[in-house]
């Protein structure tokens, strides 16, 4: 079968010493930032973007991917031991993981997390292998009109399905599109929005923007209103990890349900690991015989969500690699890394870059096995990492951010861009504006403008070309329905809140 020869090619690529090394670096760093509350996987990935300039694109993607899924393994450690999620996707693990730790069952919780994560990840990787090439083949016939409508749908879905106000999400996407216009217009050579800075003629630098918006702003927000918590238990020994027969029996079904939930929802743009884990938790509560055990240390409440967030992370690669449509900001940064290496993401990726795609998929398997080893026998190390004080961490992060951005073009100008976007990102947090859609818009903006122009040229200025094929028609209708639906729900929520405010007097 084709699949096996492709997988063989993938393992050949992923098993070279360099790729193995960077896969290991990726998953280790991922676990580290996952364990540490206050550094998300996105901040870590944007901080490592400059390093990827020195790497082969396949190696770069293997490392960045490793950080993303590695963080899902590490995130649960802080949730269980500190009652503080190491990564937002592990927030739900606190609910039952922390009570388990207080009952002295931290080891069992950590063990079940690692196993559930592995099964969730594996389920989704199988789907990546089977679905991505099929979807890509289907999308090969896409013209500019299809691309434009699919991207529009991706942007609208990602900003309206994520938490918070859909209108704010749309506004941030539009600001991202605007930021993507800065620089030289490809068709006419006209400078746009460069504000007289020659340095901006090539456009704003993705690394500086991503690090500013996600790295620096996160540090600022943590220092101003972060929670610091004390660790409950340090005594996680080998022996305490072993689950009882009962624990084992109780966590099998939730793990598989969580894997399915995560894979399914991870595919959709905007849903991602955090929402998937909450959905999986809700599902476990609903199917449980005795729902009152939840919140008091039910192992099902740990296994289900942990399987789901790992599955969602891996499944997110499917739309990204098959269509070139990133469903969340981490995927957008990964696409940005590809574009910086001169590779155009899209349906041609799988067929034109088989070593990149299959090598990446093979590295997922290798990385997940590495993570299992990192997280079960070596859990003691991560427990100790939790005691690193933030006062040492954040100056180091600032230092690496500054040097990293400087290193992209050896230009101090980019460091000022970084500072500006750091302040901007903090302002957005203060005004409760979502940051992730902005980055999606920034990365997809130039591609969308190009496809819009081309589609209009082909259609001789007739808007009806957007309804030229059933694919573009379907996506356009889906987009409109999504917008109408999100405005309807936000108006209804506002009416409810209005009544509440009135009731308060």
């Amino acid at each position: 079968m084709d699949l096996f020869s492709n997988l063989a090619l993938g393992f050949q690529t992923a098993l070279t010493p360099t790729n193995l090394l960077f896969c290991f670096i990726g998953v280790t760093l991922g676990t580290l930032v996952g364990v540490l509350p206050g550094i998300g996987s996105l901040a870590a990935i944007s901080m490592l973007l400059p390093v990827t300039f020195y790497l082969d694109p396949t190696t770069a993607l293997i490392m960045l991917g490793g950080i993303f899924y590695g963080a899902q393994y590490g995130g649960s450690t802080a949730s269980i031991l500190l009652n503080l999620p190491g990564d937002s996707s592990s927030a739900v693990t606190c609910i039952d993981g922390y009570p388990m730790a207080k009952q002295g069952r931290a080891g069992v919780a950590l063990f079940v997390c690692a196993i559930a994560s592995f099964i969730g990840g594996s389920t989704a990787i199988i789907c990546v292998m089977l679905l991505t090439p099929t979807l890509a083949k289907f999308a090969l016939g896409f013209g500019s009109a299809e691309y434009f409508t699919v991207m529009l749908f991706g942007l609208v879905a990602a900003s309206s399905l994520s938490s918070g106000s859909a209108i704010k999400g749309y506004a941030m996407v539009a600001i991202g599109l605007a930021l993507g216009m800065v620089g030289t217009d490809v068709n006419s050579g006209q400078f746009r929005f460069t504000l007289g800075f020659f340095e901006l003629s090539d456009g704003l630098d993705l690394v500086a923007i991503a690090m500013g918006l996600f790295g620096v702003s996160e540090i600022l927000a943590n220092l101003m209103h972060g929670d610091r918590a004390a660790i409950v238990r340090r005594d996680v020994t080998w022996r305490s990890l072993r689950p009882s027969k009962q624990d084992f029996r109780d966590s099998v079904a939730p793990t598989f349900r969580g894997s399915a939930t995560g894979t399914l929802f991870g595919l959709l743009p905007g849903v991602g690991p955090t929402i998937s884990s909450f959905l999986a938790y809700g599902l476990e509560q609903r199917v449980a015989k005795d729902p009152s055990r939840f919140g008091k240390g039910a192992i099902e409440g740990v296994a289900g969500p942990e399987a789901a967030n790992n599955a969602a992370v891996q499944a997110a690669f499917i739309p990204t690699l098959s269509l070139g449509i990133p469903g969340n900001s981490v995927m957008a940064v990964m696409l940005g890394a590809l574009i910086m290496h001169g590779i155009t993401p899209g349906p041609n990726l799988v067929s034109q870059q088989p070593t990149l795609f299959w090598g990446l998929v093979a590295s997922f398997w290798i990385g997940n096995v590495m993570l299992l080893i990192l997280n079960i026998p070596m859990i003691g190390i991560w427990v100790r990492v939790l005691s690193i004080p933030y006062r040492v961490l954040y100056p180091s992060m600032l230092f690496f951010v500054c040097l990293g951005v400087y290193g992209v073009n050896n230009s101090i100008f980019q460091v000022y861009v970084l500072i500006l976007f750091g302040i901007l990102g903090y302002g957005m947090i203060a005004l409760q504006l979502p940051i992730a859609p902005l980055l999606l818009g920034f990365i997809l903006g130039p591609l969308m403008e190009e496809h819009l122009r081309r589609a209009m040229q082909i259609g001789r200025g007739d808007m009806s070309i957007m309804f030229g094929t059933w694919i573009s028609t379907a996506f356009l209708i889906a987009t409109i329905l999504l917008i109408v639906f999100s405005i309807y729900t936000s108006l209804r929520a506002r009416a409810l809140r209005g009544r509440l405010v009135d009731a308060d007097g």
Partner: protein
Amino acid sequence: MRYAGVNVVEAIGGAIIFLLGAYLVIEGLHYSIGTVTRMGPGFFPVCVGAVLIFLGIAVAIEGRALNTAFPKFNARAFVGVVGGMIAWALLAEPYGLLPSTVALVALAGLAEVPYRPLPVILTTIVLSVGGWLLFIMGLHLPLSVIKW
């Protein structure tokens, strides 16, 4: 935070989005708009700007009844972090990696109360040596360690 029946936080957010949209439209009109068939460089900016103007108003209206408040602002932490990064940017090329790192870590340390000099000094030393090895020796960044 509410003032005269309006949510200030949401109103400010909406106003910023609105103004940005207005700027996009005005600046975009200076570029050539072209026709729909052959779009000029100004076409897309004007469209996106118009959408932003509309969304800015929508954000302010949607959030009108909300009770969102600003998080507390810690000026000391803000000045420490931002000042430290600006100091790094100013010092790195003319004076080298070591002085700029000292300035960055010392200023950023202001965010923590009480100020502890020992961790600051230790962090500076570790970062300078690590940064020198990784970025200057390893990745060949054109920065000197120290320069007068």
